[in-house]
């Protein structure tokens, strides 16, 4: 099955998207953020919380801020301290916390010797490398599978219940488990610690929770003879920190999209775009697939009228990912079947959109979201809406197939909701297996015309964005109709201009590794 599309238009889309992204990268290159620096600290091995439950990375950053050291970067201060004290990074953090060490007092001025710091980093990186190697040896990449990977969420708020639910999902056929985060975590400027049991609408993302779930899935996967992928959110105010924790605890995918945070969480755009760069470098290094959030636009705007905004945003997200050294195979670009079921030809229109995304990003493991906004309390009709969505997912070979829940409009999924959703998807995949061998898209028929139309609209939009600049686009609310000011939103106070002495050898190391193709 193939849509005939204008390749020149496609190339132009990419060109405009490049034009959108390039100036962002140079504009933001001279800035860093508190969470980027905390990530550096985490990658040196600093972990845990103090007696006031403040994570040590935050303790240090607060200290650097208080002592006017932040602008030089965490690595600068840490390298000095490591050289001066001969303590471990963790011991340094504890000493800072106790007030027995002041990082603004270091022996030699200027750039410190980075050997000890890089040693510390290397030992942490080894764990990432081991996890990455383990994943590589066990996971079949979603893009290489004949049938989309079945992705379900758990969101009880309690990591131990989440595990029960996740294991049951694996037993019922899930390939991917995403642990949804508790409401509001994205606005926290620190990563909570330990195993947690009381989230709302999701479970707190913590390193320990990652570890517990990873172990449970490894075990359940082993019992069922397959590798089960784990997903969490490298998003919000701690984007790169969570990316780092994900790399360490072998998460396989990470929701990671600044545009989402800007639009739907009112996170400051400068802040999150800087954070996103580091996150994507890290995920690229660790071979973690990112998931972008274009699907969300259609939860607010109409899916028919705004279909092209999704495509335009996918092109932009592709460029952001490329800039971070990420190959297409890790770009889980998002889109969704959010069309109003009252609209005639909803299936045909969504088929066109899904096939368009498929052909525009042939190597990307596309993330396809189910109907959510137009799901109602009628769980029977909901099952039917999900079935049509499942058909499109399978027929157009999407890769990361988020299963719709019949109870979408009611509650975060019950165990049985998930099992029924898995049955639905498995049945549909089986029933329509040969669809693409059995049918052709009619040249110039409704599917093709719709796809061509959406592509052209996306192109026009990208041109506008390239001209006005992404910040202006976001101010104007062109995505999801929600406008956000350049200097508004949460987390701007965590952005700082780099000092001339600023250094981040951790990031550089990862960048070099990516360049050398060490991934």
């Amino acid at each position: 099955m193939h849509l005939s599309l204008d390749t020149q238009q496609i190339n132009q889309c990419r060109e405009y998207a490049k034009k959108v992204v390039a100036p962002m990268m140079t504009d933001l290159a001279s800035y860093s953020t508190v969470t980027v620096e905390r990530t550096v600290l985490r990658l040196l091995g600093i972990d845990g919380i103090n007696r006031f439950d403040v994570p040590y990375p935050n303790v240090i950053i607060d200290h650097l801020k208080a002592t006017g050291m932040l602008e030089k970067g965490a690595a600068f201060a840490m390298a000095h301290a490591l050289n001066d004290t001969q303590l471990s990074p963790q011991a340094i953090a504890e000493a800072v916390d106790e007030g027995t060490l002041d990082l603004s007092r270091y022996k030699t001025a200027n750039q410190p010797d980075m050997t000890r710091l890089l040693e510390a980093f290397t030992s942490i990186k080894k764990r990432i490398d081991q996890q990455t190697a383990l994943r590589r040896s066990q996971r079949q990449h979603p893009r290489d599978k004949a049938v989309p990977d079945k992705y379900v969420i758990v969101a009880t708020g309690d990591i131990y219940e989440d595990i029960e639910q996740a294991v049951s999902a694996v037993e019922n056929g899930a390939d991917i488990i995403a642990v949804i985060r508790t409401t509001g975590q994205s606005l926290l400027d620190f990563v909570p610690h330990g195993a947690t049991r009381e989230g709302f609408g999701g479970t707190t993302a913590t390193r320990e929770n990652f570890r517990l779930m990873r172990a449970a899935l490894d075990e359940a996967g082993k019992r069922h003879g397959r590798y089960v992928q784990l997903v969490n959110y490298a998003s919000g105010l701690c984007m790169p920190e969570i990316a780092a924790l994900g790399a360490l605890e072998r998460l396989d995918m990470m929701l990671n999209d600044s545009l989402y945070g800007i639009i739907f969480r009112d996170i400051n755009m400068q802040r999150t775009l800087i954070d996103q760069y580091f996150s994507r470098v890290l995920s690229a290094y660790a071979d973690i697939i990112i998931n972008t959030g274009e699907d969300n636009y259609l939860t607010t705007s109409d899916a028919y009228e705004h279909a092209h905004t999704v495509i335009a945003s996918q092109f932009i997200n592709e460029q952001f990912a490329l800039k971070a050294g990420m190959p297409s195979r890790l770009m889980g670009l998002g889109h969704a079947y959010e069309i109003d079921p009252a609209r005639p030809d909803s299936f045909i229109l969504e088929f066109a959109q899904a096939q368009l995304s498929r052909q525009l990003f042939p190597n990307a493991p596309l993330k396809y979201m189910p109907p959510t906004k137009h799901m109602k309390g009628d769980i029977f009709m909901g099952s039917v809406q999900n079935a049509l969505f499942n058909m499109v997912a399978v027929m157009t070979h999407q890769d990361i197939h988020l299963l719709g829940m019949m109870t979408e409009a009611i509650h975060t999924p019950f165990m049985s909701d998930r099992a029924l959703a898995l049955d639905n998807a498995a049945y549909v995949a089986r029933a329509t297996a040969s669809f693409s061998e059995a049918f052709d898209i009619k040249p110039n028929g409704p599917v093709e015309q719709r796809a061509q139309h959406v592509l052209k609209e996306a192109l026009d939009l990208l041109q506008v964005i390239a001209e006005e600049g992404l910040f202006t686009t976001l101010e104007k609310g062109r995505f999801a109709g929600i406008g956000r000011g350049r200097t508004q939103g949460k987390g701007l106070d965590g952005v700082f201009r780099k000092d001339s002495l600023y250094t981040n050898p951790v990031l550089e190391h990862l960048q070099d590794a990516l360049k050398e193709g060490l991934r």
Partner: protein
Amino acid sequence: MKPIPKAIRPYGDTLHDGKVQISFSLPMPSDAHGEAAAKAVAQSMRLVDVAVVEQRSLGKDYSFYVVYGTLTETVDPSTLKVVDHGEKAMRKTDVEAFINEHFQAPLVFIGASTGTDAHTVGIDAIMNMKGIAGHYGLERYEGIEAINLGSQIDNEVLLEKALEVNADVILISQTVTQKDMHIRNLTAFVELLEAEGVRDRFLVIIGGPRINHALAKELGFDAGFGPGKFAFDVASFAVKALAERGVKTR
């Protein structure tokens, strides 16, 4: 497997959270009054935190509701009488070996879908060569003679034939259950057997989509099998029961 607690509730996403989904119609229009009535119905079912998540009109005099709620009752599974067929069922070859070892003559099974019931797929699944879902039917069992009378067989005719062929086991299938048709028809058969004084001459086994072992026992049959049960389950139970009774044993 984890041990089953003494007091359990339905499970949504937190142990014993009591979450239950219900749906039903009411003979009322779909409006705020209907919603209140739906909520009251749910409460009468011992639910709290009742959420009417969907309500729709079924026409001017009727309405439909989907409701979620929290059940306040608990059930203690350890106190429940679980009526099942006893030991694990033998496979076909083991049943055949068992027959060969214990019995003299071939065992005669006669079966039918009785009364006005014209559904044969269930009884065929148990009796015919082909069986179902990869499990051969009794006809294919060595040591068993299976006679399938088909459907719409009157109780009287079935008994007559069973006596005629000297059956050891009578198999009855019942599919239509509306207004408890099956119960009436099955009860009538037991009464017939008793009236004729031949209840003990046969092992009588029933089956169908709404039949289970507990119901069969309640109605006075020797066993009952529902969906997901196959010829080997029935054969296994039957040969063991016949051996126990010493029917045709060596």
